[in-house]
């Protein structure tokens, strides 16, 4: 009895399955996103304190959630690559890194846009902001390391090692930033309860963004697999041409 991950180890089977899944995930993401945006911008009340700016939250919170989930996914894929040598693990990690960096950047950007009217400044050295910023740096490190290495299989493994180091150190970073923050300013309490009228749009948006990510991730993985196939075919073609040329040269020498 093969598990799902074992069956997906065959790229062709993965391509078939993902081709069948992708329209459904993209469709669901589009519908939920439209519904969520409608709820967020028209059907939900403005906050009694924050006014209309509270609507930024419906974009900001899903991005922040994804920024962490995607790093978790990359760490899981890296583990799958290093321990089980799953052939799709690296494809998954590679496709997820830029998406994760983009969502983290969006979380920082929307947060700072919200901060301007609320806190009076675009950037505060708040504990959460700082740890998300460092998470963003970790994503950049992953992408930079991969792009700096030419050998693809070595790049895959080295990036995986870095991702696992990052996921080990992230809790320590989070802890130390929280500690540092209490040195400088009293921590802000964000954990107050969310009103039910805002909870539904937030939930819909969170699910929509997660589906959106998975749609883009699957598409990215498919592109990566196709790119690798093209590369393999090219190498084969060049090798074949060289072999033919060598044969022709040999025949010429024999005659």
């Amino acid at each position, binding site marked *: 009895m093969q598990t799902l991950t074992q069956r997906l180890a065959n790229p062709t089977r993965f391509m078939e399955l993902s081709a069948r899944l992708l329209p459904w995930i993209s469709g669901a993401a589009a519908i939920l996103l439209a519904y969520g945006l409608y709820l967020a911008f028209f059907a939900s009340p403005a906050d009694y304190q924050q006014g209309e700016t509270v609507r930024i939250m419906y974009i900001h919170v899903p991005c922040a959630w994804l920024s962490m989930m995607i790093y978790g996914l990359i760490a899981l894929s890296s583990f799958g690559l*290093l321990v089980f040598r799953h052939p799709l693990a690296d494809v998954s990690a590679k496709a997820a890194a830029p998406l994760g960096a983009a969502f983290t950047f969006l979380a920082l950007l929307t947060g700072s846009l919200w901060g301007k009217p609320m806190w009076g400044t675009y950037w505060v050295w708040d504990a959460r902001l700082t740890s998300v910023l*460092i998470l963003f*740096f*970790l994503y*950049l*490190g992953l992408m*930079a*390391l991969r792009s*700096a*290495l030419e050998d693809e299989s*070595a790049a895959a*493994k*080295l990036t995986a*090692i*870095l991702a*696992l*180091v*990052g996921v*080990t*150190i992230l809790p*320590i*970073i989070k*802890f*130390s*930033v929280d*500690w*540092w923050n*209490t*040195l400088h300013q009293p921590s802000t309490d964000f954990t107050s309860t969310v009103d039910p009228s805002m909870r539904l749009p937030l939930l819909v948006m969170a699910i929509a963004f997660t589906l959106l990510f998975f749609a883009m991730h699957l598409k990215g993985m498919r592109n990566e697999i196709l790119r690798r196939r093209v590369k393999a075919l090219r190498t084969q073609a060049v090798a074949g041409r060289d072999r033919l040329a060598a044969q022709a040269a040999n025949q010429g020498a024999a005659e």
Partner: protein
Amino acid sequence: MKSFWALLSRDVILAVREGGAIGTALGFFLVVVSLMPLGLGPDLNLLSRIAAGVLWIALLLAALLSLNRIFEADHEDGTLDVLATGPLPLELVTVAKSLAHWITTGIPLAIMAPVLGILLNLDLAAYPILVATTLAGTPAVSFLGAIGAALTMKTRRGGLLLALIVLPLYVPTLIFGISAVSAGAGPAGVGASFLILAAISLVAIVLGPLAAAAALRVQLQ
């Protein structure tokens, strides 16, 4: 164990006799710290308030400069391949090399730090704590740095990439190093920050060699 000590003393002797290796890091440390007052103004009150932070950041940057020395030279002349086939597991090889980096960079920088503290008008009472925290914190700098050095061993523009990879990992060391020195202002005073700093170093000593050795194995195949 014998080969471990042999490797350690070889790396230390090489760093000492090569000339420039230790001196450059110390010189860089001195120049960065003396540029700070030029950039921030000569106000002694301000300088003494930010002295701990400036010293720690300059120390991290100075140590960063010499990180690529850990593996690069030995990889280029093939020593690393010999070490990989030798009796010592690669994990211990990286322990010896990181330790040598700490002895030749971390300790000199830690000893230099109070001297530079004078330039920044650091409170005299903070001197013993400064030396203690830099000594306790710099192992984390060397052992976490070894991960970055191993990962970027074969890349061309390794130095900048190394900084991008390693500096975020130094955040906890930096925070607790500074909070121990800045006059016990922390939530639980100097003792707690110092102990956490030591704990971070211990974690780095375990984590660094494992990750660095894995990275070396990938590249030495």
